[in-house]
């Protein structure tokens, strides 16, 4: 059975309706729970130190607008602090569970109760949770640059330590450095991540394929492609091959899901090119006769083209159905 959790995906923490209200009731509270990581970072010099749920709840009583407003007026303004906290504890625990399921927090085991002889569960923030906190912070223009530096450090150390990526991690570390040197880290990474917040289901979606990006503004697209090629060409040859192969597998899967005419011809071509780590099978569309045409392309060439001339027909390619030149458009995957 699919039980509705309060928050079951990252986008639910951020999505708003057309008039600007959060779609989920607990969205803002979830954001505030995540923001407590900044307090931990400040007090303990490390965001991933364990904390008591009670401490978090007490902090939220001052920080979270809904909680603050609840006790503004008589007669409830006299409610003791302990009762106020107890009243919201179940809701906060529920959200901690939801956010842990999203890998933004994790249980840090049990600790002695401050009063009494029992034990209580304590939590800590994960680097994914802290990344989201920083992305929330980056929405404040005054903090944007300093937060971008923190995000750079966080991702840099994450990808260096990670054993769950190899060529992708190496490429990202190198490309982030170049973004930073050229002063575009915020634009090319922080903005991209922030834009994904209201559509990403998991943390994996949020940081997926940060090496394959598309920009509509010509100057930005040009700069991105320049940096991308520079970085790619500076990789060790074997790492470069592995990366292109990894990108190929992702893009080919996307193409397979989006293909309009899924017949044997497409599968045959994919099969034929399975050994070519740098070639991709695409389904283009003829603007003249509306037919779908299969073609193969170099990944690097494809990425350059989809950024710099996304809606421009391929020059020198003739439609095999209507024989018209310069009429085939390829999709952005």
């Amino acid at each position, binding site marked *: 059975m699919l*039980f509705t959790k309060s928050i079951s995906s990252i986008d639910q923490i951020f999505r708003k309706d057309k*008039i600007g209200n959060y779609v989920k009731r607990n969205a803002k509270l979830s954001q505030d729970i995540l923001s407590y990581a900044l307090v931990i970072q400040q007090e303990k010099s490390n965001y991933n130190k364990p904390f008591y749920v009670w401490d978090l709840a007490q902090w939220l009583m001052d920080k979270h607008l809904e909680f603050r407003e609840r006790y503004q007026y008589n007669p409830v303004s006299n409610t003791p602090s302990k009762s106020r906290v107890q009243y919201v504890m179940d809701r906060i625990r529920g959200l901690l569970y939801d956010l842990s399921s999203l890998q933004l927090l994790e249980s840090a085991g049990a600790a002695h109760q401050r009063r009494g002889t029992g034990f209580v569960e304590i939590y800590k923030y994960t680097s994914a949770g802290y990344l989201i906190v920083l992305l929330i912070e980056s929405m404040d223009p005054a903090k944007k640059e300093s937060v971008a530096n923190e995000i750079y450090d966080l991702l840099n150390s994450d990808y260096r330590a990670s*054993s*769950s990526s190899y060529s992708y991690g190496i490429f990202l570390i190198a490309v982030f450095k170049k973004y930073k040197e050229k002063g575009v880290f915020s634009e090319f990474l922080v903005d991209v991540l922030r834009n994904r917040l209201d559509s990403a289901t998991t943390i994996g979606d949020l940081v997926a394929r940060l090496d394959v990006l598309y920009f509509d503004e010509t100057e930005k697209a040009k700069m991105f492609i320049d940096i991308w090629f520079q970085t790619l060409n500076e990789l060790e040859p074997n790492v470069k091959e592995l990366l292109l*192969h990894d990108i190929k*597998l992702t893009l080919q899967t996307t193409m397979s899901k989006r293909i309009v005419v899924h017949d*044997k011809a497409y*599968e045959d071509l994919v099969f034929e090119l*399975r050994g070519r780590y740098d070639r991709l099978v695409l389904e283009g569309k003829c603007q003249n006769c509306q037919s779908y045409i299969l073609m193969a392309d170099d990944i690097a060439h494809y990425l350059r083209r989809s950024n710099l001339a996304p809606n421009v027909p391929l020059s020198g390619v003739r439609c095999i159905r209507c024989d018209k030149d310069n009429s085939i458009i390829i999709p952005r995957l």
Partner: protein
Amino acid sequence: MRAKELPRIDSIFRKNKDGNYTASAFLLQHMLKRSVFLNKVQNESNDNDDSSFSLWEIARWVISNDPNLVQKYGPKPPNVEEIIENTQMRFKRKLVHLMDLGLIQKSGTRLQEKGMGTVDVYKYTEYGQLLAFIIEGLDHNGQPRSINNEIFDLLCLIFPLKEDSPASSILYSKFFRKCKDRGVFENITVLFREAVSSDIPFISIIDLFQYVLRFKFNDKERMIYFNNLFDETINELDSKTKELILCSLKLEIEDRMKEQAGYFEGFEKMRFTLRADFRKIALESFCIGCQQFFHIPFDLLEYRKKVRNSYNEFLELTTKCRRCGLDNGLILPNLI
């Protein structure tokens, strides 16, 4: 005003904390179930007329058939036109949602019954009809034979056996026919029902099919039986189709391995080395003797057989470690 819901198949089966479907899920289910009704009407009247419908037609039917709406407006509300007028934005939103999921499609326009203008008309896709019959089956204890037959016929339409059909279509078509011939097709419909009633987050209809074709029955015997039947079907394919199927199964398994790999560098290198060899998959295994990861090539069909045997004998999925020589020392992941 509401934000547009992200199109996900599981939105049709979402439940409240009390275990009942949400009002939104119930509404989507009934919008699909109208296709079962249309099918029945057509069968009874032997009428193959155009089954397209307008937004108002589907809304009118759902208002009289969705228990939540029947409770709200009564069984035969006299002011149904007014109700539709007031709720049409909600119906429109749900219709777009089902179109985004590929379950309904726009089929054209027709003249308005009243007035001079035209209205858009829609029809159920084959996937939409299939899901409608699966939902219909959820209401019955034990699937009626007629529903199983309808599901089988729809699967034959979705996966046609034609010369230019994709390999997956040929395989699925032959597999479902084999199930039907052996009188076990009902189990497939049970899997569909269990899948949509589970808490698995299905995004697209393809995810649902991929899950069903992993034969995750609670009963081990049945799990083994259907995996055997599936491999038997693969082995009976012509050599070219079989190659394409193996290539696609390899990519699926390696994609799951990618998600689980503990030491990605080794896996990525092995996957790259084996990229052209469609009969072999790159696996990450862990040796309990050497206490380290090994990345090994494994014959795809042999691996599938090994996984099946592990179900049968309640054994761990293991093989001999070539480094330390420990029998059953190398633990393999179950990616089927």
